[in-house]
């Protein structure tokens, strides 16, 4: 049907109105969408109604989306070093919010990589790099394989927000993320691992089915680690917890 014919102006306008309102559904909507792509008269009619109704949409209360939405967009588009507009860094990485624990207020991803350069550290060491803003290292955690202790050291100017602390999380393969403990605000921290480091940390995150947040966390942590280190695997999370 040639909707743009002058005789069908009224019909076109009625369809465009239903299209913009959303009550045009199914195949009728598909046909209209297709027509609008190829026919500027149809497109203009749809556009006019969308504009008319758009002022109504302004009344819808704004709701801040969880930070993971942006993280997901950046990951899908492969944006590098993307921060989050207007957010401070612990909020940026706060896409772990919504995570199973109610006390969880914000969090960070740690990525664990096996260091490829034996000249710097023993080959059996595990190194965790926590990326702050602009993907610069903020915290570094080290563990000797077989040792059930993790040493965490701040290397950047990284502080939790007032009233919060960072918390380390392990993502065991096939299991639920597990807290490894809360970090002191400054200095070097020793964190006991539930098992010798190789066993506790060396296995990569395991995808879990929705609706559990861990699947996304694991995937994104892996993405992030991969992006930062090429071949690293994400193993730890840290989060801010209200004190």
């Amino acid at each position: 049907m040639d909707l743009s014919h002058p005789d069908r102006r009224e019909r076109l306008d009625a369809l465009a109105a239903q299209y913009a309102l959303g009550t045009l559904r199914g195949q009728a909507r598909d046909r209209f969408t297709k027509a609008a792509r190829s026919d500027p008269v149809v497109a203009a009619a749809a556009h006019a109604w969308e504009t008319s109704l758009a002022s109504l949409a302004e009344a819808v209360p704004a709701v801040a989306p969880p930070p993971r939405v942006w993280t997901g967009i950046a990951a899908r588009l492969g944006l590098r070093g993307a921060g989050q507009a207007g957010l401070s860094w612990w909020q940026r990485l706060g896409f772990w919010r919504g995570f199973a624990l109610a006390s969880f207020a914000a969090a960070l991803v740690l990525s664990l990589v096996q260091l490829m350069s034996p000249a710097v550290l023993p080959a059996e060491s595990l190194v965790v790099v926590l990326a702050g803003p602009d993907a610069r290292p903020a915290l570094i955690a080290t563990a000797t394989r077989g040792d059930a202790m993790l040493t965490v050291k701040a290397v950047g100017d990284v502080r939790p927000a007032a009233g919060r602390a960072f918390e380390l999380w392990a993502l065991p393969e096939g299991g639920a993320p597990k807290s490894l403990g809360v970090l002191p605000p400054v200095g070097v921290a020793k964190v006991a691992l539930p098992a010798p480091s190789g066993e506790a940390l060396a296995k990569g995150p395991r995808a879990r089915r929705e609706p559990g947040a861990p699947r996304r966390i694991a995937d994104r942590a892996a993405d992030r680690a991969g992006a930062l280190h090429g071949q690293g695997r994400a193993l730890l999370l840290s989060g801010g917890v209200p004190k």
Partner: protein
Amino acid sequence: MAPAEPADRSARLAALLGRVALGDQRAFEALYGQTASHLYGVALRIVREPSLAEEILQEAYVSVWHHAGRYDAARSQPVTWLTSIVRNRCLDHLRRRDLDTVTLSAEEDDEPAFDVADEGLTPAELLLRGAEARSVRECVEGLEAGPRQAIALAFFQGLSHAELAAHMKEPLGTIKSWVRRGLDRLKRCLDSAGYQR
């Protein structure tokens, strides 16, 4: 031009979209920062499932990144353009849900699946609140109660004719007629008020 949007904000967003079209990541972040809350609110309103609304928002911004060059500042306000993208995606998802033959009637009688923290405004109230421009508000107020409510529910909650009929407990024919008549009146009123569409 929709009069309800401040011109400077529109100009700023249009400039950001122009930079996004050139692949400017910072502009894209800024655009997200300035528009995501509004668009997420719109998506939540329509699909009423946070996880789905998040997915739609992601799809929408990915699409914006790829197609920002299609935005034509001479033809529409940036927010209008962005809102259309999100609304259309929401409706696509709702349609898929329609195909899964989910019955709305049981759910509609209960609390909504998700509280969108909307200050308790009903869709009909939102319709009036949204019509900031005097002429638009007057036109909306001029609608009879039935058509006004049907249009509000369709617009803000993405209900189809069949869903409106179930929700408002009216025959499908009545609903279709209300929507058609309501839109028709709205159009004539806007036209006569000189509201530029």
